[in-house]
């Protein structure tokens, strides 16, 4: 199947830019915490030099905070690296579980800004599929974005992965405000192009308040 490369390219660039901007914000925030923690340690040291007693627990707390933020930045950069390398191969055998984990990680800031909780328990076993990794990440993000916008009062989006007839399936639930999206084209153009390229299928089950993405295993031809 031929891809609509103009739409795929535009959507992909937009997706890459959005995620890169979010990553840079996250790193900035972590650096800001490290900056204040290091600054407070310096403040306390200066006070100690003047003979003002410093509680050792305060020092432990601040150094612990720095270590925690360094780990946070390391996780962010690992995700950034995986994300950047997902463009390397147009078709690759990947673990869908890891890909969903990555997209959830990349989306966590967007979810937090919307007050939405992403509930995702990765299945214990890998689920290997052959696909275009970057297009799949883009499509998963668009589905997640839609699910978050229709999350409703519960403000929790659950992500579930299971096997489908051909390939695998990712389900997003609950969609409590589907009527709010009436009149909105769905799936939107970039989603349609990504679904065609990935030989995927998208289905809204209003009864179960669920968005379901089925992903085929066939490669995309240029």
């Amino acid at each position: 199947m031929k891809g609509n490369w103009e739409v795929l390219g535009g959507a992909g660039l937009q997706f890459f830019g959005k995620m890169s901007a979010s990553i840079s914000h996250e790193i900035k925030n972590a650096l800001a915490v490290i900056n204040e923690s290091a600054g407070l340690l310096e403040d306390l040291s200066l006070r100690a030099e003047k003979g003002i007693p410093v509680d050792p627990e305060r020092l432990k707390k601040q150094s612990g905070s720095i270590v925690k933020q360094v780990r946070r930045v390391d996780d962010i950069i690992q995700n950034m690296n995986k994300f950047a390398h997902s463009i390397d191969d147009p078709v690759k055998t990947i673990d869908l579980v890891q890909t969903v984990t990555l997209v959830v990680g990349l989306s966590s800031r967007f979810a937090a800004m919307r007050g939405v909780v992403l509930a995702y328990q990765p299945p214990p076993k890998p689920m290997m599929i052959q696909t275009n990794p970057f297009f799949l990440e883009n499509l998963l993000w668009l589905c997640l974005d839609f699910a978050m916008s229709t999350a409703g009062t519960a403000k929790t989006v659950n992500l579930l992965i299971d096997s489908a007839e051909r390939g695998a399936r990712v389900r997003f639930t609950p969609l409590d405000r589907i009527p709010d999206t009436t009149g909105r084209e769905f799936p939107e153009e970039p989603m349609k192009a990504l679904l065609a390229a990935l030989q995927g299928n998208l289905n809204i089950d209003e009864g179960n308040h669920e968005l379901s993405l089925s992903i085929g295993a066939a490669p995309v031809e240029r």
Partner: protein
Amino acid sequence: MTTFRVLLVDDEEELVSTLAERLSLRGIEAEWVTNAEEALRMVREENYDLAILDVKLPRISGLKLKTKMEEIDPGMKFIFLTGHGSEDDFKTGAAEAGAAYYLVKPVNIDALIRKMKEVIESEGGVP
């Protein structure tokens, strides 16, 4: 030293609590919250000279929160903290929304205190 009362609002709890402690060590009365709802409650219940707001807060932008806080306390002054890559990135939209004072994270505490004094001493809050 000029004394004033400041409310810090940022969803990064470790950032906002540590910054408040550092300001307190410098004689500035600083309180902090991590969301807009708490910030509005605090402004209703207490008097602050100044609020330092993160540009991006959960469910609301810092600029919108500023408008809501001004409705409660029209005399309040504001400084924004942004995680944008550079000040230039932030300038365009923020200036239109009346966010005249802002600093890019991570902030230098001395620069922040200088900016706080500048804002407090300005008559209309906008230079």
